């Protein structure tokens, strides 16, 4: 059998300070960029405004575009898509504008585009702007297939096929009518009819987004709350499944004042807390990378961040699960050793799963096209950071807490060591093991 690691024996906890340092550097770099550098670049979903995505047949002259649109109101025109796709996004920011103004902004952009690049001296409609219904109506009128009354929905189907060709093979902007002859069902008379009734406009609108400031603010708020709720839910579940020292009763009944109560509660929840902190750390670092590399945060990116939360949590739980199991088996070893052993035992699984998932999202990043780029970037960064944080942050945090709270207590009976004994034997009077499982 092929094996990645025979019997790894690495002292992970001994290296915890390097992991902390690495995370510190990454967090610092990212958040310096967010706070003092380029900041977080919100996409239109969150800041509101008008986005018009236009694809041109020829490389567009951006200066001409700018002047035709009126310099004052345009915030940015930038290239997107593949290098030779001649695709730009024109963006007007929505700050302080109400919805009505935004809608007018959209109309102005489209009118200006038509004026600058429109069809000069022709009153035929633009084929690149034709909808299936209008095309079908044109075709029925010309009747190139000589079907007259028997046409039925033949022309509707033909129109759909022709537009499918325009949208899928020519990416929405046809530059030569003759290309259509490759489409299914387009015969010479059909082609002649199309040439007769349409002209080819030099651009096609690929996407229009108008987001009012209210919706933008709402979406921003929702994204934050929903992520926090999800983290909270995870915290409760993990704290319940991986309970640290002390029974619930002891947490609430012990007469040690407020501080004592909080400490005991933390003992109880330390696994959940460490896992959630580690995941939170992953999100913060990924956001930092977004700022450093100038990617925009959109709603889809939020979905990617949530994916990485799920993924990183999964990774952490696999290790915690092993710690829980080993804790019962290896009573005479120190907690740090138990954690080390658990990480080593799960190492090949960690590398395999992460490696394969990383491969998946890397393919998505490289081949996924413009729409998926920011999305898959979040996953590429997130999977690396998420894997690392499980053994580099989450586990060391539990060990550190255990060390701090369990000073002088026999190894493995610290608060985090948890369920070593089934009975309610009292080890130190202060730190009783939980009686679960």
């Amino acid at each position, binding site marked *: 059998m092929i094996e990645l690691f025979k019997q790894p024996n690495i002292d992970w906890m001994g290296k915890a300070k390097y992991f902390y340092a690495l995370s510190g550097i990454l967090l610092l770099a990212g958040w310096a960029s967010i706070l003092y550098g380029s900041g977080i670049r919100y996409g239109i979903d969150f800041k509101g405004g008008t986005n018009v995505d236009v694809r041109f047949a020829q490389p567009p002259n951006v200066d001409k575009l700018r002047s035709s649109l009126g310099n004052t109101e345009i915030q940015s025109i930038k290239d997107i898509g593949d290098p030779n796709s001649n695709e730009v996004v024109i963006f007007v920011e929505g700050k302080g504008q109400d919805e009505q103004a935004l809608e007018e902004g959209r109309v102005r952009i489209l009118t200006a585009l038509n004026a600058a690049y429109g069809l000069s001296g022709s009153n035929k409609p633009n084929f690149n702007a034709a909808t299936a219904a209008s095309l079908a109506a044109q075709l029925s009128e010309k009747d190139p297939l000589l079907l007259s009354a028997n046409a039925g929905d033949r022309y509707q189907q033909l129109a759909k096929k022709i537009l499918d060709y325009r949208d899928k093979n*020519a990416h929405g902007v046809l530059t030569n009518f003759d290309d259509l002859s490759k489409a299914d069902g387009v015969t010479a008379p059909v082609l002649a009819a199309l040439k007769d009734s349409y002209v080819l406009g030099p651009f096609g609108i690929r996407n229009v987004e108008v987001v009012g400031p209210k919706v933008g603010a709402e979406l921003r708020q929702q994204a934050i709350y929903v992520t926090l709720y999800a983290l909270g839910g995870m915290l409760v579940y993990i704290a319940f499944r991986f309970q640290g020292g002390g029974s619930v009763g002891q947490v609430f009944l012990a007469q040690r004042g407020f501080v004592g109560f909080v400490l005991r509660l933390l003992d109880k929840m330390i696994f959940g807390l460490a896992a959630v902190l580690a995941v939170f750390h992953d999100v913060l670092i990924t956001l930092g990378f977004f700022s450093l590399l100038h990617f925009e945060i959109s709603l889809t990116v939020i*979905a990617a961040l949530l994916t990485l939360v799920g993924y990183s*949590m999964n990774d952490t739980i696999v290790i915690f699960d092993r710690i829980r199991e080993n804790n019962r088996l290896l009573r005479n070893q120190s907690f740090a050793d138990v954690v080390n052993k658990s990480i080593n035992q799960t190492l090949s699984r960690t590398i395999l799963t992460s490696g394969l998932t990383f491969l998946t999202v890397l393919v998505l990043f490289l081949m996924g096209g413009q729409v998926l780029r920011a999305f898959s970037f979040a996953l590429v960064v997130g999977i690396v950071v998420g894997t690392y944080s499980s053994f580099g942050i989450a586990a060391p945090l539990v060990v550190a807490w255990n060390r701090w709270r369990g000073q002088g207590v026999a190894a493995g009976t610290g608060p985090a060591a948890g369920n070593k004994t089934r009975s309610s034997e009292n080890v130190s009077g202060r730190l009783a093991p939980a009686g679960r499982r």
Partner: protein
Amino acid sequence: MNPNLKWKALFIFSVILFCIYFLFGYPVFPTSVAQVKDNFGKQIKLGLDLQGGTHLVLQVQVQEAIAQETDTTVDRLTTLLRSKNIHYDEVRRIDDMHILVRNIDPSQASEFRDLVTQQYNNVWDLARAAGDPNGYTLTLRPGAVAQIQESTMTQSLETIARRINALGLTEPTIQPRGGRNANEILVQLPGVGDPAEAMGVIQAGGQLELRLVRDPVTYPSVAAFMAQHTVLPPGTELVTGSLESRGANGVTDKSEVWYLLDRAPVVTGRDLRSAVETRNTSNPGMWQVNFTLSPEAAKRFGPFTEQNIGNKMAIVLDHKVQSAPVINGRIEDTGMIEGNFSQESAHELALVLRAGALPASIKYLEERTVGPSLGADSIRHGVQASVLSLVVVMLFMLVYYRLSGGNAVLALFFNLVILLAFLAMSGAVLTLPGIAGVILTIGMGVDSNVLVFERIREELRNGKSAAAAVDAGFDKAFLTIIDTHVTTVVSAAFLGVFGTGPIRGFAITLVVGLVANIFTAVYVSKTIFQYHLMKMDRQAELSI
């Protein structure tokens, strides 16, 4: 064969076969590859971001309906006080929710109070006005406000739905959005690349009112009226309309005129029973819209027209006077709207009138149109990348875990089939964030298999027999798998409940994928192992 195993296998096969049938063999049993593709395309519905289409969020300006209620009450109250001979100086709207009644004759104060309490018991609260011993303020009750809000929203939703449906689009979505007080409506029109028509029809007013003209003279501007009369008579307002006169040279001359109208309409769009466009009888080149009133409205309209013979009646559409014909006799239940209509515009107006007017105007908060070419690009890239990475993952599993890898590949494949079939059955749409959910599902599917296999290998290293190692491996990994899956399902549940749109789409795909994964990576995979163990030589090594 072990009977238990036989039943398990049968169960698994029927689940998978059902899913495959549902995805590819339904609704028409396929006889060609094209039909299989066609079935699949019909079953898996794509979101707007993948198939192209228009997504609109609009807000109903409920405040307008509340203000209108206040206006109507001012009119009714005025009429009521006059008919009871209660003396007052003024009945006036203070703001959207408050009415001021000034200087009621002190001797009639109790009569006034009784009247208001009796008439508007649950709608308006009566209180003394500050600074006027004989004045009163009426305040719209919160309950009444909530009721107006609710009925306005319901009516807007129904009206917009009727208007959109009249366009004959496939599977539009029209539903309320946001919280109770958001007053928002979500409209999704799959496949509509150019939203202009839909937006036009949604936004078209269609607010029809028939109002009495108070002054036979029209005025060229508000200033002209004020110059002659200085103050508006109570219960009236000036409304604009355009007057078209065709000069001797055939040039149409458009000018603005103002009419003095009653504030309260006699008949509104709600009283219409039908509306049809027809050719104008006197001018065949032009079109008009004929309408019929409901029986209840006709009962009001008949006496009203009889009393006002010789006066003018204004037909007001969206706060503009369309025409103001003289009432020549008693009219029961029919009328017509004349104007400068082509057949198309008359047809559109009739459609909008039939669908009913919006009780308040609307504002667009969000508009997204994904062109079909962008959607096609996204899905092509997404599918290509997913297939390629899936192939790479599967190949790796086969190389690394040999025969057992085949087991994992099968489990992954089943997982995808179940996930897609469930999406098809529940009518959920596949969106870009949904694809993210699928990727996470695949990731966790691979992970579950790796967890189990690594455990089995460990047990084998510890010297257990193949059968014992498989048993122990599944047992121990099961707990881990449950914990990872439940944690993720918990978080996804929060996303599904509190998130909207893309975030919810992600959550639904993820939850379904994870449940399917527990089934395939544990139950199915274990059954295959057991079958294999049963067939193979007791001493042989497990191919893992």
